[in-house]
Structures are given as C-alpha cells and as structure tokens.
C-alpha cells in the first residue's frame, strides 16, 4: 500500500532531482539534451564525473552573495520570530486557557485559509508607500518607512504565512502534556519559567523541533512571498532560481542554486532526524 506514493516520489521528485544534479555537474547529454540546447551559458563536463564550472560561475556571480545572505537572514530571523510566537501562544493557551487564548490562536490560524499569492499581494499593499500603516501613522505626523520591496517585508510576509503550521504543531504538543505533571511541579514550588523550561519544552520537544525545521525549510525555498514583497536585487534564492530558469535563460545556474538551498535545508533536516532519534532513545525504541 505504501508503494504508490513511493513510486510517485521516485518518478516526480527523485528522478528529476538526480537528473538535475547530473545537469548541474555538466552532464549535458541524454535527458538533459534539449535544455542544454535551449539554455545559455551551459558548461559541459570535461572529466568522467563532470565539472564544477557551473557551480563556480554561480559562486562568482555578483548577485549570488547578497542573495544567499538575504535568504539566510530572512530564514533565521523569521524562524526565530515564528517559534517564539508559537511557543508563547501555545504556553499561554496551555496554562491559562480561556476565551482570550482561543481568540489569539484562532486569529493566528487565519493564514491557513488564505492562498499565499493573495496573502503576499495583500501584505504588499498594506505596507506599501500608500498603504494602511503609512496612512495611519501619517495622521500622527510620523513618516513611517515604506516596507514593501525590502527584506523586512519578506520577513513579515513569511512570518504571516508560516505562523499557522508552527502554532498547530507546538500547541498540540503542549496540549498533550498531562495536567498532573504541571500541577505537581507547581505544588513543589516551581516557578512559571521553571515549569516551562524543565517540563513543558522537554515534553513537547519533538513537535517543537518539527515546527522549527519545517518552518525554516519552507521559508528557505519560498518563492511567492519574496517575489511579491522583495526587491529585485538582492532577493531570496527561490526567486532567483525562477529568474535564472525563465527570463535569464540560464537553467544550469538555476539548478545549481536549487542544490545550494537543498544542502542548507538538509543541514536543518539533520536536526529533525536527530530529535526523532533522541525521542526514540528516550522511550526505549532504539
């Protein structure tokens, strides 16, 4: 029964990625034949395993450095903010409960039901030169900077779109902690922060790590939000991949950038696997 998705994954994800990897190393024949004819600035292998010329040309491109820096900065900053917000709301909902907590959590789930394109466009108009924030603050005589077309706007947009998943994950993890544990710590005189640090976070550790890793990986490869909200240059690598593949007609470089993101995202994925192994060890499954 697990065969169909594995086959789909192999055909539509595994095979294209492997073939693209060969293409990035300069294997321009076979299945990469047509793209090599169409694309410009194609590097062909000079050894049996291939060549790093395409990688070199990307790394020496003046656009790549700032793009990579923007991608990493936005990813780290947005992930930290999303995690802190999700933890804060999750802990508040778990410990306090009540109507206010429900309002906050349901508010933060709204982005789940809004298509990313529409969200990105809405955020773009909201923080634009004639947007709401600027107009409101103008009434108080404050000249608020235009955020649209900056990395700040990308960060705001990614936080907006990443919140629901992180909150669902973290709060469901926190909800599964038994009351008895928290109450007994309380009776023993543990402070609020001690309960959070020594009981809530360790017991919800795996869901929290899943939330963080999926958020970071999702942000790192995102296209729509930086495309609508960011500057032309520097932008995030997801946009640059689309630009190099389409308008600039440099498919090999675009594939190289995809692998740069893949390597960075894989490093994050290691954290996820490590957390799973840790939890398996703790519960004695390994």
């Amino acid at each position: 029964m697990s065969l169909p998705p594995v086959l789909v994954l192999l055909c539509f994800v595994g095979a294209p990625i492997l073939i693209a990897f060969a293409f990035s190393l300069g294997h321009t024949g076979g299945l990469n034949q047509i793209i090599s004819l169409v694309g410009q600035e194609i590097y062909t292998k000079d050894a049996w395993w291939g060549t790093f010329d395409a990688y070199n040309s990307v790394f020496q491109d003046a656009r790549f450095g700032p793009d990579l820096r923007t991608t990493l900065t936005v990813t780290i900053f947005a992930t930290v903010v999303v995690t802190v917000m999700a933890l804060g709301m999750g802990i508040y909902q778990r410990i306090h409960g009540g109507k206010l907590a429900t309002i906050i959590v349901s508010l933060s789930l709204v982005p789940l039901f809004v298509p990313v394109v529409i969200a990105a466009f809405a955020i773009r108009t909201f923080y634009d030169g004639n947007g709401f924030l600027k107009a409101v603050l103008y009434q108080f005589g404050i000249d608020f900077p235009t955020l649209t077309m900056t990395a700040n706007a990308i960060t705001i947009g990614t936080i907006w779109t990443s919140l629901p998943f992180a909150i669902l994950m973290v709060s469901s993890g926190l909800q599964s902690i038994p009351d008895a544990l928290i109450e007994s710590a309380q009776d023993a005189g543990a402070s609020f922060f001690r309960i959070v640090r020594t009981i809530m976070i360790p017991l919800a550790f795996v869901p929290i790590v899943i939330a963080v890793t999926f958020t970071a990986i999702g942000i790192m490869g995102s296209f729509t939000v930086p495309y609508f909200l960011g500057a032309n240059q520097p932008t995030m690598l997801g946009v640059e991949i689309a630009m190099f593949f389409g308008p600039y007609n440099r498919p090999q470089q675009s594939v190289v950038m995809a692998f740069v993101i893949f390597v960075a995202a894989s490093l994050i994925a290691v954290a996820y696997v490590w957390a799973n192994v840790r939890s398996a060890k703790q519960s004695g499954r390994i």
Partner: protein
Amino acid sequence: MLRGNTKLNLQAKSLITKALISLFILFMAVFILGPLFWLAARAFVTSWTYPNLLPDGLTLQWWRVITGDESLKKAIRNSLIISPIVVLVASIICLPAAYAFARYKFFGRRAFLIGMFAANAFPKIGLFASIATLYYTLKKL
C-alpha cells in the same frame, strides 16, 4: 484540545498582564487581518488618495470589469477543475500509504519516511525547474 477548558492557576492575574495580552491580541488582529481587509476594501472603491484613511468613493465597477473578462472565467474554470482532481488523486495515493506507514513495519519503512522528508527539503521552485528540464526532453522523444 481535550483539556482545552482546564484552567491551571499559574497565571499572574494582574491588570498589567491582562493589558499586555489585550495589546498583543490587537497587534495580532492588525498583523493578520489588516492586510486582508485593506485588500478587500480596495475592491469596492473608485480611488484612494494617500494619506486619507477613507476612500474617495465607492463603486462596483471593478466587479463588472472582471465578470466580463473571458480569460478570467477560463482561469476560474481551470482552478475548479484542477483542484478537485489533485485532491482526489493525492487522497487515493496517500491515504492507503499513510495507513501502511502507521500500522505495519516493512522493509525500508524508515528509509522511505526519511526520503519523503528529504524531498521536502528540496526547494519547490527548484523541483519545478528540474521537472521542466526533464519534460523538455521527454516531449521530444
């Protein structure tokens, strides 16, 4: 969610805490809903002069414009046809597999799960580029 109504008496019940939480709710409301309302409002106005908080006039003109647009009708039809098909196919493929992964232990189970996660780590847009690369050639064959 089972214990959603349970209240543990951990919270500081001071007014400052309440005020801070209300402020945070206000911030979240503006942050999450603000852009959506701001965008929705623009669908009904004639023009909007910065820095006025209210539009210059109301109109349904833009709705007439888009309902008369043929290419938009085609786009909506495409969305309505493609999305149910994708949902259906994805469910047919994934639901039995989810059951199998959850209930049975079989050879390569862990490897497949990690593989699916690894596939998620590859950027979507890069995957589209890779698939396009492949399909250019397949079309030619």
